């Protein structure tokens, strides 16, 4: 609800989040409203269960991975700052930002950072390589029980073969972003 949300988020915090993420003032208050509505325990942080309560997310095959992306290493609670930082990767690029050619650091939602975020959803152990096992894990999440191990294995092998250019049998970030788009891919 509106009135409770806007009194708990201070102006200074909104300004800081604005600088860090690039969201506008009204976007931040609206997302704060969403954050508090998900926070059933009313303690200012979200747990994994709070995310699982969203039915559309709970039925998403990669739902658990996406939820994990919000939680920093080894923690089970995410506060509003962390929530916004993760969402900032998906903020659409505004027209007035497209023409900026130099800035101190690359904005969170640049194309590269978006792809890095997607890469990290595959690369769980953060060794900057998607190994065959990591690829298999994500594949298994997406197909459930409908495809056999052998078939899934050959799909994984074929994918790595096509993308791997330096022969180390895994996909690095550079190889990841060079994979040619299949018809229907979104422009991220």
């Amino acid at each position, binding site marked *: 609800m509106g009135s409770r949300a806007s009194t708990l988020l201070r102006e200074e915090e909104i300004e800081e989040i604005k600088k860090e993420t690039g969201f506008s003032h009204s976007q931040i208050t609206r997302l704060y409203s*969403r954050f508090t509505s998900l926070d059933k325990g009313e303690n200012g942080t979200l747990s994994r269960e709070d995310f699982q309560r969203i039915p559309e997310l709970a039925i998403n095959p990669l739902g658990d991975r996406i939820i994990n992306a919000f939680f920093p290493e080894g923690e089970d609670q995410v506060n509003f700052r962390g929530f916004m930082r993760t969402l900032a990767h998906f903020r659409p690029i505004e027209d007035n930002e497209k023409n900026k050619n130099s800035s101190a650091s690359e904005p969170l939602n640049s194309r590269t950072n978006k792809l890095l975020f997607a890469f990290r959803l595959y690369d769980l152990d953060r060794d900057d390589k998607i190994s065959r096992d990591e690829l298999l894990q994500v594949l298994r999440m997406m197909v459930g029980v*409908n495809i056999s191990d052998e078939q899934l294995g050959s*799909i994984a092998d074929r994918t790595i073969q096509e993308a791997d250019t330096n022969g180390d049998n895994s996909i690095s970030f550079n190889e990841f972003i060079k994979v040619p788009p299949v018809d229907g891919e979104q422009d991220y």
Partner: protein
Amino acid sequence: AEGAVAGAVFQVWVFVVLFLIMLPAMFGLSLGVTGVYIQVLVKILEWATVRIQRGRMEQPSVPVPLPNGIIERAGGSMEEEIGELRNSFALSDAFYFYKKGLESIVDDQVTQRFSSEELASWNLLTRTNQNFRYISLRLTIIWVLGVFVRYCILFPLRITLAIIGLSWLVIGTTLVGFLPENSVKTWLSELVHLTCYRICARGLSATIRYYNKENKPQKGGICVANHTTPIDVVILANDGCYAMVGQIHGGLMGVIQRSMVRSCPHVWFERSEMKDRHAVTSRLRAHVAAKTKLPILIFPEGTCINNTSVMMFKKGSFEIGGTIYPVAIKYDPRFGDAFWNSGKYNMVSYLLRMMTSWAIVVNVWYLPPMTLQDGEDAAHFASRVKSAIAHQGGLLDLDWDGGLKRGKVKDSFKEEQQKMYSSIIVGQNGISSCSQSTKVE
């Protein structure tokens, strides 16, 4: 001197209540006072909206509510985005799921149905504002006046009416209960019920408009409607008599239930009986089969939804047989929020909020009766009735289960998504015998 003033006020009070409200209620007449009241309210609220819009232009930090959700969702179904029957996997396939997942984190179609609708304009109630009352002095004054009128004038009046209405229900039905079963008893029972519900409706300043009265539920039928609040019962019962279905409670509610059933057959279940679906269905079936009994009133969603959408209808009500009379109920959110958020407010605080709202304005549409068609199963029939109600009431037709308010979603939905994706990347024949069924959705 104070005693005389108090005495006079009391006399005026009794006069107003008795002659301007109770007696017309008994005869189903309306003095038109509520109509004028509503018109005045609309004028004031329109003025407030214009004032807020002006205030928004001056103070850009006042947020603009978006009734269609807070993000713009592009993109279509899994087939459209990943590509029909590609027979191959691509690394970018995962992007589809990430996108859908993040969209649902920011704004989803289900959890928002269990909390009150966000309004496009302010209805001068603090509970739905975003500090609008600080926009201008005039707005603040109107708001203060509004608080005074609602709490000090309307509320005591409404409480009095509610007490009178409910006591009349208990006393009247008990008295009628002593009569032997004959047509006089039935007629008296209907009169008592109708009067009581009319008094209660006035106790909420309810303005109800009924459409298509020729489709009103008949004896031996089943009336189904979308559910927003317990007040739905009062709204529907103002225009006809129904047999209520529900669990028997203790306390005041139980007293009312027990006396009601003396004068006409309602269907009350013990808590233990409610768990046995078979027993419930057979009792309702017996009620319907005796074609002389009042139509049963059922809310197949099973829980209160916030009146922006209609959620899944539980098929149990559609297995009983008989004719279904669908009814669509839509509350006008400008005058008060009728939705009962049972997680947030208990019954007493909910009723208090209702009695300190401006008014309850509601449209009720009676839809043409529907029956189970040949070869149709109960679930499909339920879905068909739900669509008809959603269409008439201008509500969003959702397939999600209202039970998600409290419970988790079934794993089988995730499995459906996985199956759909698998058939895209390996084709329909490629799905191995890991899964039991061979039919691909």
